[in-house]
């Protein structure tokens, strides 16, 4: 893909750093807001900064996940291959925001609610996962995301072999559905946000489904890859 030296230079020195900083931007913004809050300055976290933090990290993780799922369709439609070079970066960013989302929930909710006890927080986590459907869904989505993050590196890809690697990384589809359901089951009443995320996800999944059907038709003997 990056055999062309111009493209390799462009990718390494422009596209990848640009993607990195764009993906880091929400996190940097949040870190800055918390710095302002804790030093008594003006901040945009509102009157319930912990709630704002949960929503912000969760929304960011889901949105970046959706963007990562849009990379392949964008490549197919624009026929501009280099966009694939930042796909891993985008997927990993979704993982980091999901991890921060869970750490914030552990630290700012469970740990504080348990009177600053780590064992109390873990007991609370287990109780939440067992009893609260939206947390069960969200946690499952995250657990499925972890092996994808771990196997995202070149060495792991080679070790697994591309077929197994691709098979494993198809987990992104069910986990994206779980993440959107987690959001939908969390909000009160019938709210707009989860429907928007769900609608975009449905389009992206429909694109894969269309591809599978098309491939199955063009080569009836071979199984769709």
């Amino acid at each position, binding site marked *: 893909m990056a055999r062309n030296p111009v493209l390799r230079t462009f990718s390494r020195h422009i596209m990848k750093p640009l993607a990195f900083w764009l993906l880091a931007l929400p996190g940097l913004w949040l870190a800055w807001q918390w710095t302002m*809050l*804790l030093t008594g300055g003006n901040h945009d976290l*509102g*009157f*319930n*900064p*912990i*709630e704002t933090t949960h929503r912000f990290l969760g929304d960011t993780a889901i949105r970046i996940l959706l963007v990562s799922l849009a990379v392949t369709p964008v490549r197919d439609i624009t026929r501009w291959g280099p966009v694939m070079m930042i796909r891993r970066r985008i997927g990993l960013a979704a993982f980091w925001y999901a991890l921060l989302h869970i750490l914030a929930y552990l630290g*700012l909710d469970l740990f*504080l*609610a348990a009177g600053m006890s780590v064992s109390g927080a873990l007991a*609370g986590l287990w109780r*939440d996962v067992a*009893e*609260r*459907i*939206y*947390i069960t869904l969200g946690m499952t989505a995250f657990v499925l995301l972890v092996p994808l993050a771990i196997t995202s590196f070149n060495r792991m890809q080679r070790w697994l072999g591309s077929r197994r690697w691709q098979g494993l990384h198809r987990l992104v589809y069910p986990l994206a559905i779980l993440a959107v359901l987690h959001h939908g*089951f*969390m*909000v*009160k*009443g*019938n*709210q*707009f946000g989860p429907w928007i995320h769900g609608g975009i996800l449905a389009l992206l999944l429909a694109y894969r489904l269309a591809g599978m059907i098309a491939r199955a038709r063009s080569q009836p003997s071979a199984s769709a890859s």
Partner: protein
Amino acid sequence: MFIRKNRPWQSRETEITPKGLFLNRRKIIASGGALALSGLAGCEAQTSQAAQTVAAGARPTSGALSYTPTRYTVADEQTPYPAVTGYNNFYEFGVGKDDPARYSDAMTTDPWTIGVEGHADRTGVFSLEDVVDFSALEERIYRLRCVEAWSMVIPWVGVPLAQVLAAFQPTSDARYVQFETRLDRDEMRGTRFRVLDWPYVEGLRMDEAMNELAFLAVGLYGEVLPNQNGAPVRLVVPWKYGYKSIKSIVKIRFVSEQPETSWNRSAPHEYGFYSNVNPNRAHPRWSQASERVIGGNVFARRDTEMFNGYAEQVAHMYAGMDLIENH
């Protein structure tokens, strides 16, 4: 030990001249001689006289209200005004916490009428001035516990609900009372999306409505209620989750059967009719054992109390009831 710490914006108790007295300062100066002789008793007389300066049948639509303080207060620090008026659930203006403050200015609150229907001798359409006696307002500092596990302490200004309801002379068939929020798709942009089955409705059992704590607020922090807090008139039932305290009321119905309530209709297993604050009954999706305190230290939490700390005044109404079943 509870140590009260005033924040810079707070000028509490001793510093504040009772609003009635302040508004009436010219009269007090004029009658200074008599006042000097009568001392404290004179002050009280002046205060009650001040309350009469607002003529019956009139109501201020902005700014300060005259009211008298009451014994209904709590020791905890009051939630700062910007938080009380900037962090709201009023889905008719959007589901974001800052949506109500941003968009509720579009709502017309003057004139305001309330339709009274059902089992009562006096029914019909009344203007708000005829429902709430603006010359007899009082202040009550109540806790507010949202079902989303956060809480505030708010100084409301208004009148006891019992007093208002009694004036309509409900009959013995009136076993429940239902309230309804205004619905105007042009002025309330959040209602264009069906988050809930609009209009918003809430209800109380008659004895709950007549309880001494049930309050009809027309102001907070001594001033006319901002639109985002449910102007011009809202319910305040501090022992129940916040959503029971219905905002911007346009209808009061005296009914014989337990009335429908919006959140119960939306998710019956999550929101019951009673919705009493109960740390032992978890919301299916989150614990209700403790709550985030809004407006102070960002990490502040407190343990949630049964009936939000008002068991003494309300627990007797639920004697013998299974409060997990009847959540």
